[in-house]
């Protein structure tokens, strides 16, 4: 039994009488979307045609370079090869050298920790802000939303300039404030020289930048929690934690799960902020994360073979970390 056939017939036979050949995209989509969500129609070639633009762009922009990256990861590919020397096939040597490199493992571990801390903070603060938005009266709420929007819209380089000055050791506002609040002598305190402190600064910046996305998504999801459910909870005498745990959280969980996965992916390959901070100060070899390490290997030192091997390793690592979520998402697909 296939109730969708009904729509199919209605939809397509009507269309065949259409004389116009030129149609807008939207019309195509209207035609292509006559089915109730989730109950997907067994597609003919139509579905494939719709995928053509996306697949073409992905193949060109990512697929082809990725294939070359895989090939390069098995080659000796450095500056000489860039200048025309034939690349030598060296099998797994790049990988062997990479895995024997203690610095590389340091980078991996630091990145994992950095990612975990940043994702956790971002999710907590973002959800917290969303709850505040929900409870605050209109004017403060809009103010908070505008503020979030402002920092979300700040281009990375602009934001980094601001933070560079805030944390500046001689003229920075943060040192001045801490000293004047009597929290100790922060005169000329250097925030970037110790790796841990460097990562603290990076965390502040990354969290500051990522919270708005989480806050907005969580807030949008929260506005969809039925008011009745909340009120029912209140009448039952549930306290705030119980309301969160048993009513609110379950209903925004799907939203948070996807945001969580995205944050893991993004924070694991954080690049721009770290790269910028390394330019400002600190000790680069002790502050590399995955992104900057690949960049230094490839663009910096022209070790493209090694950089490619490492990038592929990072891809695998990301897949492992997000595997649970991807698996859950795929399971939902097959239903």
């Amino acid at each position, binding site marked *: 039994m296939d109730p969708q056939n009904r729509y199919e017939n209605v939809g397509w036979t009507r269309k065949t009488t259409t004389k116009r050949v030129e149609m807008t995209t*939207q*019309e195509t*989509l*209207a035609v*292509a*979307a*006559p*089915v*109730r969500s989730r109950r*997907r*129609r067994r*597609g003919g070639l139509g*579905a*494939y045609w*719709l*995928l053509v633009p*996306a697949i073409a762009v*992905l193949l*060109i*922009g990512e697929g082809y*370079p*990725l294939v070359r*990256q895989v090939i390069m990861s098995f080659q000796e590919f450095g500056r000489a090869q860039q200048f025309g020397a034939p690349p030598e096939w060296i099998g797994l040597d790049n990988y062997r050298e990479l895995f024997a490199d203690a610095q590389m493992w340091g980078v991996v571990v630091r990145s994992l920790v950095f990612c975990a801390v940043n994702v956790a903070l971002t999710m907590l603060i973002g959800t917290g802000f969303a709850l505040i*938005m929900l*409870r*605050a*009266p209109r*004017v*403060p709420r809009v*103010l908070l939303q*505008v503020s979030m*929007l402002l*920092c979300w*819209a*700040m*281009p990375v*380089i602009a934001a980094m*300039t*601001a933070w560079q000055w805030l944390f500046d050791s001689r003229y920075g506002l943060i040192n001045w404030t801490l000293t004047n609040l009597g929290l100790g002598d922060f005169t000329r305190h250097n925030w970037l020289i110790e790796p841990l402190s460097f990562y603290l600064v990076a965390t502040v910046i990354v969290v500051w930048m990522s919270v708005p996305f989480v806050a*907005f998504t969580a807030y949008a999801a929260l*506005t*969809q929690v039925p008011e009745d459910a909340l009120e029912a909870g209140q009448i039952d005498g549930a306290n705030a934690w119980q309301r969160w745990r048993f009513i609110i959280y379950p209903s925004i969980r799907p939203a948070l799960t996807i*945001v969580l996965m*995205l944050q893991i*992916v993004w924070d694991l*390959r954080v*690049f721009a902020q770290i790269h910028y901070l390394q330019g400002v100060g600190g000790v680069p070899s002790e502050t590399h994360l995955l*992104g900057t390490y*690949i960049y230094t290997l*490839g*663009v910096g030192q022209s070790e*493209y073979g090694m*950089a*490619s091997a490492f*990038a592929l390793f990072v*891809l695998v690592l990301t*897949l492992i970390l997000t595997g649970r979520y991807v698996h859950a*998402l*795929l399971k*939902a697909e097959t239903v």
Partner: protein
Amino acid sequence: MSTDTLAADTRVRAGTDRARTRRLRRSTRGRLWGAVAVTIALVWAFPAYWILNGALQPVEALRSPTPSFVPTDFTLDAFGRVLDGDFFASLRLSLSVTLICVALAVVCAFVAAVAISRFRFRGRVSFIIVVLTIQMIPPEALFISQYRMLNDWNLYNTIAGLSLLYVAAVLPFTVWLLRGFVDGVPVELEEAAMVDGCSRVRAFFTITFPLLAPGLIASGVFAFLQAWNEYTLAVVVMEPDNRTLPLWLRGMTTVSNEAIDWPAVMAGSVLVAVPVIVFFMIVQTKMTQGLVSGAVKG
């Protein structure tokens, strides 16, 4: 959201929002949350304010022993210094690349989202896996291949080439976002309208499309941000004279034999941020709706 319609839901939501607000306004608790919200708003927006503050003062103010929290030596000189031909050339380049990227990404992603949301076909799950995986590729090691590819196709140093790479970079996320969104639009609405005598096309435009708009906008915003902010790839595939805005901005901080004009850098930062903020303000309401109805449905 499985049974009631989106439109109805939106109305209900708007209603509850209003009721909620009314109740909150009166309560002390509401006022407390309001105070918290305002405090956070100020703290979070502070770095943005600090940039503006720095842009409106001479450089000495930045390096004075006590910070000047408001531009007491107010001057617009810094803006005058950065608003030159280079800025407008970069602005044009950035706008072209970004807008093309947004348009292409939204269209390609939308079409693909419809396919995976509405059809069952061989390779569907594989496509989804590919889309998810591509998002995880670290981009830094792809540059050399991307450069060579564009060069072979005479797309080096062209807006088309750079846009193409940007589209590819944002497409996985936008497909994903829109797919969830298309999933959420019930076809029954459209059909109801058709029963009333609308053509399918009209039904689509009057009923479905307005509901899709937030999703399209949310994905557009994402594409916009990525293309507007990116600067490592732009070094690789564009000639030195063609700088996108972030590179123009960075150029000012890497001068080697003269003083860095920090107020000008900050003025430049403000100028680079303005188009994004304007764009965000325009689409703000729709965008937040889009985030939830789309990304969130999964």
